[in-house]
């Protein structure tokens, strides 16, 4: 039987980046995102649940990571360094840093929908399942997020 370390290593291989990115999209800080990744895996291993398929398993992990990230924001409102932003600035990727700044300025619920839709390629129905919302709400959040982003990028950066 696989021990916890082997199981965690397999999960990291399969879902590590997805969980880390979901957490980073909330926390904007690598150290905090790493904490969330670690705690999500611990919760998974402690839960001992079995999943029908990989999609179900991934959805569970993302949901836990998002909930833990929200809690972390609540308890630790001051965020540390945004390594992604620093990297983009140092590499002079101006265009990407504008987009990242704009996404960061979105309300949390819009940012999570944008992340799951664009980065994870989740359908609105999947997102509804992960975030425990109605699909119609997800669709309207996605539309509002796009509108807000367009507005921010056009007004602030003359970029759209």
């Amino acid at each position: 039987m696989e021990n916890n370390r082997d199981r965690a290593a397999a999960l990291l291989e399969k879902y590590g980046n997805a969980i880390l990115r979901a957490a980073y999209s909330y926390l904007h800080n690598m150290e905090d995102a790493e904490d969330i990744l670690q705690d999500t895996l611990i919760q998974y291993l402690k839960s001992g649940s079995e999943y029908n398929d990989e999609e179900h398993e991934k959805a569970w992990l993302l949901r836990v990571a998002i909930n833990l990230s929200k809690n972390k924001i609540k308890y630790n409102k001051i965020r540390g360094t945004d390594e992604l932003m620093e990297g983009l600035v140092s590499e002079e990727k101006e265009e990407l840093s504008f987009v990242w700044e704009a996404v960061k300025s979105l309300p949390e619920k819009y940012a999570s929908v944008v992340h799951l839709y664009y980065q994870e390629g989740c359908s609105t129905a999947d997102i509804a399942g992960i975030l425990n919302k109605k699909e119609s709400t997800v669709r309207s959040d996605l539309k509002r997020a796009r509108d807000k982003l367009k507005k921010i990028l056009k007004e602030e950066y003359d970029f759209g």
Partner: protein
Amino acid sequence: MTLGKYNELMENIVVTEDMKNRILHNIEIELDGEYSGDGKESNDNVISIDNAIDNKKVRKFDRGIRGRWASYAAAVLVLLLSGVVVRSVIGDSSHSNSSSVMGDASADAAPAQEAMEEAASEEPMDNSWQIDSAEPVAKDSARPKPTYEAEEGAAMAEADYVLSIKIRRAGASDESVDMYESIDVGEVVYSGISELVVKKITDNEIVFTSDGGLIEPNENGSINLNATPPKTFTVKAGEEKVLVTQTTDGSDKITISYNGM
């Protein structure tokens, strides 16, 4: 489309080998209580920032252990102090030779015993963002923030929000909290078997519409399943309102607090 660049952005966020080793190391300690990592996974050549993070991660679990020992130490201290109190009272009573004073002293010892048991049963916190209050003020800068800073942060969060929505889903032991720094008409603040949508906002109150299925619980916490659910709910500034879903299989509980605009 600009948002297509979002994926390009996220490609920069990856689990590095160092991160993977740190996490596996910590998970092993957390779940198995021991580290059986092989030599190749020790990071002899990690850069200083990784060392700093690594130390922090290890401390995260150490704090749990320290918290437990701090509780035991507190219990022993209370026991010793109560012993000193009892002895001093007995000592005094030996001069006055009064048995009634001794009786008082033993009565006083009972709460001390309770306090000791309370301290001994205190659970250590294991979340990195929760702060171990039993720990003395941090001596090194790398140590996690002390309690007062966390409380200050929480107080800041309390003061900043206009609307707070706490949702405990049916069967769940924990609840999610959404703090709104601003809110617009039309925003959906709750979505479950029905939706709760902001209809009107003034300085003094906020009005929500619901498409049914939400109701205020009775005073004893029970839910009237036969009542017709209201279509609107009004929460006055400074007031807290609790709504529940009108279901038999446990209910979602939504706690709304409005601070005014």
